């Protein structure tokens, strides 16, 4: 009996290790970035995959792995993958995908039907960011920046670091899907463009925010309006805001920022309200020769408020022009009062586009940095 048990244990250890379908890393084509561009036909897409090749022969002069770009067309993503499988000598592995890039033309044609593959597939992950590529996804995936050879990693880093709006790092497949299936809120996605700078280096830049409605991109917010959007949806800490007028300019570091939105439906009017409370520290002051230490802070406060009102107002007005509630005012009303929400849900887009809004700002400059007041003040006093 004991011998039988020993034999059984050895047999199980030998045959049940689960390696019958194992694949070595070198046999995998690890997909680092996925792009969807518009195909030649209207009902076709072009799938672009950025694949990190694990074989040694693909290293560049700096010893970094060169990514490979694979593309194919199909009526849907799986059809395109099937034709790629015929071309590729390795198995495509999607679990390490860093970004989903949608070319602008395809974004305008519509992407809702392609979300199904990403949500249904066992290997894809919901926290992967979804981004619109200004020219096309292939151009962005082919870009090699000076800091990072693999553009998918470069784009992901841009969204995750302190400089980009913090809410961008939360715009992933899950949040896009949640807003897409929401009755009133419209999804947004950052727009990334590949550019050549003055030193003839290729760089990737976040250019604005795309607005989607019913699965199609219907418009975009520029950088100015995106900053307004940032204030409402989530400002990045340690970011600096630059304000200026004819007399000078100032850079103010955000110490803390809290924003909230609320909605109400009173006497047939759908009112949207934005409340922002932010504190700042002065990073840099230049100019303002006629200002002194005792009046500079209130002056900067006013400049800041004007700047914020302009940007936030511009963002809200743009979304109303597009008849797309990208902030969640409709959802805010639904969470507060479902009965009132039922009254406006049928004609929500029209009502939203004409509804008034209020911006309540509480802004405070707490700190002037290492020096008190302004430098010119001290120069004058000698």
């Amino acid at each position, binding site marked *: 009996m004991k011998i039988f048990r020993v034999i059984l244990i050895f047999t199980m250890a030998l045959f*049940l290790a*689960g390696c019958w*379908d194992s694949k070595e890393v070198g046999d995998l084509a690890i997909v680092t970035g996925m792009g969807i561009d518009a195909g030649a036909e209207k009902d076709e897409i072009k799938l672009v995959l950025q694949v990190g090749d694990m074989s040694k022969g693909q290293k560049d002069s700096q010893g970094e792995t060169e990514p490979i770009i694979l593309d194919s067309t199909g009526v849907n993503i799986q059809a395109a993958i099937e034709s790629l499988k015929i071309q590729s000598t390795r198995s495509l592995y999607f679990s390490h995908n860093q970004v989903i890039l949608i070319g602008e033309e395809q974004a305008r044609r519509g992407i809702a039907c392609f979300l199904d593959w990403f*949500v249904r597939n*066992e290997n894809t*992950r*919901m*926290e992967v960011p979804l981004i619109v590529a200004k020219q096309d996804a292939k151009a962005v995936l082919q870009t090699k920046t000076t800091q990072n050879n693999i553009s998918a990693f470069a784009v992901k880093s841009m969204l995750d670091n302190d400089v980009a709006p913090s809410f961008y790092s939360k715009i992933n497949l*899950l949040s896009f*899907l*949640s807003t897409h*299936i*929401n009755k009133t809120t419209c999804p947004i996605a950052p727009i990334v463009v590949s550019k050549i700078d003055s030193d003839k280096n290729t760089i990737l830049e976040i250019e604005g925010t795309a607005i989607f409605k019913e699965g199609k991109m219907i418009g975009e917010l520029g950088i100015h309006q995106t900053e307004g959007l940032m204030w409402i949806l989530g400002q990045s800490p340690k970011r600096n805001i630059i304000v200026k007028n004819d007399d000078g300019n100032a850079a103010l570091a955000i110490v803390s920022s809290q924003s909230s939105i609320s909605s109400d439906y009173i006497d047939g009017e759908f009112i949207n309200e934005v409340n922002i409370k932010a504190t700042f520290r002065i990073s840099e002051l230049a100019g303002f020769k006629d200002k002194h230490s005792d009046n500079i802070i209130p002056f900067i406060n006013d400049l800041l408020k004007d700047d914020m009102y302009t940007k936030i107002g511009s963002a809200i007005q743009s979304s109303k022009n597009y008849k797309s509630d990208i902030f969640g005012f409709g959802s805010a009303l*639904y*969470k*507060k*009062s*479902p009965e009132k929400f039922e009254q406006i849900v049928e004609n929500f887009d029209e009502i939203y586009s004409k509804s008034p809004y209020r911006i309540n700002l509480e802004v405070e400059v707490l700190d002037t940095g290492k020096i008190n007041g302004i430098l010119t003040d001290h120069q004058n006093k000698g």
Partner: protein
Amino acid sequence: MLKQSRTISKMQMLFSIACFIQASMLLTSFFTPVGGSSSWLAVISSYLVFAVFTIPLIMLIKNFPDKNLFQINAIVFGKVGGKIVSAIYLIFFWTLSSLNTKDIGVFLQQTVMTKTPTYVTIFFLMFLCAWATRKGLSVVTRYASFFFGVSMIIMIFSFIFSYNLMDFSYFLPILDIEPIRFIQTTNVSLNIPLGEIIFFLMIHPEVRDINKNSGKVVYIGSFMGMLNILLVVIHDTAILGEAGKLFTIPTFETLRMISIGDVLSRVEILFAIMLMLLLFFKISFMVYVTTISIAEILEIKDYRRIAFITAALVYISSYIQFNDSYIHAEFGITVAPLIWTFIEFFLPFLTLMIFIVKQKYKKGSEQTA
């Protein structure tokens, strides 16, 4: 009549109940699409209903500490009536064993072993369950406390590390759901995790001193299990919001999103491990109960001789029960709550009532005599 010796302690039974209920974590996807953001309230209300509905079960344990459910049926309903009622319970036990076996097979295929046929994974699971059944209840329930501890740690860990992903405004508006849907969600939550403790009425004669504090054991064990289910429902709703109803295994998706300092990610494997442990425990317990039920109803002296046969029966029926997963899901939310309520709560209540009436009649006739 089966001879059941007292082999496990009350603490083992308590942790077994907790593990048994926790193993239904996978089945929250049955009622969360119905209840939506109010599912967590339905879970709490189902426990309150359970606290009342489980009184007949506890009273049966107290009145019949040495008799299992089938033996109680024989005493209360008579030989023929008892066999009919026991047959209903047997079909229920067998059905639930096979449905849970199918669930673990589907779970393993969808998440961990995508290319391995379920025939193979379920075969080895059934072999282990049958082997554990042959060794007895003490072996089946031996690691209940360990499994419970591991699953609580993993659940708390995932709750803490996914806190930054949670948006508690997804719970608003509270109770924005049609009354029938709330009742439906409560009923499903009552039957699927909680009501299944009817299985323990087949093994309570094997618990030492069960006539003392049996209520405490049932209530504390079920509360512990239910707490985990509530944590899971809150966790999934707070992270996925409206998108939660799309997924077949919402908890798996939420754990996939955890990333601790960009270093520790892909922690969904912990959930897979936890669920495998719990489901293995639950299925082996169910196979054990089904085996002794068959032995009891057919009056087979040694239940161990039919352990592998029962496992084979459960294995085959896991493929036959519902061919279509859509029909299985629809059955779970539309018809099952009604049938399960009848079997899990109404039948024991009827048994207790008939027993009480019989006792009173017996006392009355003894007095007149």
